[in-house]
């Protein structure tokens, strides 16, 4: 595994991208790595594009900004349009194909398509597209172990939402095993 992994997670506000980023960051922390999480912020609370960047590293993190991500999660078309070209060669993107119809033309990155929103709605995991896509990202990159990711999930959930933990686990596993 390389010393540093950088993520951009992007989609509509309300799709839970910031939360997904927090899960990744806590997972990295669980593994004893340096981590940073930085949201875009502004007058885009709901519906606009929202994204965050996460860095996991074995050494102190200089910039928490990510210009060229190793890993991209794009849950809508504007996000995919904006960040696809920035993924470093050899990088990985996971795209919600229920909201993004086009396919990448890049040949130097691996792009995985998963109908995350559709799957979430079909399985009664409303709002779980973020975790489904995260499961897929984990499967294709193994940036941490499943066990670590679930630790990260646990740490990311406030006590009052603890009862939703099993649904999130279900969503992650759904994404992880999608297409098997």
């Amino acid at each position: 595994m390389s010393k540093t992994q950088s993520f951009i997670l992007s989609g509509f506000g309300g799709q839970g991208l910031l939360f997904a980023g927090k899960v990744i960051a806590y997972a990295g922390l669980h593994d004893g790595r340096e981590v940073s999480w930085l949201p875009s912020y502004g007058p885009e609370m709901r519906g606009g594009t929202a994204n965050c960047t996460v860095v996991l590293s074995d050494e102190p993190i200089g910039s928490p900004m990510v210009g060229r991500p190793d890993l991209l999660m794009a849950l809508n078309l504007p996000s995919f349009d904006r960040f696809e070209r920035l993924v470093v060669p050899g990088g990985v993107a996971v795209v919600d194909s229920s909201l993004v119809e086009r396919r990448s033309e890049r040949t130097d990155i691996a792009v995985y398509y998963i109908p995350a929103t559709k799957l979430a709605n079909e399985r009664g995991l409303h709002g779980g597209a973020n975790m489904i896509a995260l499961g897929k990202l984990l499967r294709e990159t193994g940036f941490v172990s499943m066990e670590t990711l679930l630790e990260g999930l646990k740490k990311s959930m406030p006590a009052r939402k603890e009862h939703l933990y099993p649904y999130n686990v279900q969503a992650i596993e759904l994404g992880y095993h999608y297409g098997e």
Partner: protein
Amino acid sequence: MSEKLLMKGNEAVAEAAIRAGCRHFFGYPITPQTELSAYMAKRMPKIGGTFLQAESEVAAINMVLGAGAAGARVMTSSSSPGISLKSEGLSYIVGSEVPCVVMNVQRGGPGLGGIQPAQSDYFQATRGPGHGDMHLIVLAPASVQEMVDLCYDAFDLADLYRNPVMILADGMLGQMMEPVEFENQPHRELPEKSWATNGHQNRRPHNVINSLYLKAPELEAHVRDIFKKYETIREKESRCEAYLADDAEILLVAYGAAARLCKNAVKMARERGVRAGLLRPITLWPFPERQLFSHTEHTKAFLTVEMSMGQMVEDVKLASQFRVPTYFYGRTGGVIPTPEEILEQILKIAGGAR
């Protein structure tokens, strides 16, 4: 060791303030410091403290003056335009020698500007921000953990020197989450607040908190007393971090968020065989003049990097006494320079210097 938590800078600094004994917070909403107020609003009522959303920044800083005068540990926070509004009150607080802590989560300006991270309030923080002969003690964290550590010390410094302390952060540090722990809170020996206007209880003459001195010689003496404190602060409290600086031919000087970007650029430059280093002022006032000057011995050039049009660069030139050429690179208005851009500047200077 305690468990590390992931927290936003804004929230971490609020928690640190509470752990430092701050029980009174007066603020006014502004992006990008909002989480700090929200955190205080949630916590203060549960621990018998005060969270008050004031009618204005102006009122908030004066509530700080009142609570500080009463002897309480007190804090307010804002972002750039709001700090402008607090400037009047800060001048009075300095003149009245009342301790308090003020957080500025900087955004781009002038005017309403933007809401993205910037460092364009350096002059405001270090030269003012209010009228009169005055300084704030200005601390510049570069990580969420350092926001916590400096927040602890900010309250001690304020009490020790009876002067406002500003924590000068920016939208990036305020908004980002990093692992943080709250142990290791240092404690300084602090004097009793015998000057506080908390009611004389018929046991002492009345205390007066005041910044008015109508007789010129008296005002001069008062200001000189304040500046005696400043002399001590300059001697004892200036701090910086040196990163690969000892053998650096090109020494970057940057604080806060910009310093993080510079670290990346320094590493990249070293990989290309250019001996770059970084000097990161942690106290902006007092500026680490001696530390910076000591590097004029071996450094061929300074490169100051800021998220502004160039403000700290003036202190770099002054502290280096113009012994070494000082270059500047900045992005402003909320645009954040990339390490690659900074590297390009380093390489340009290195090419020219060789």
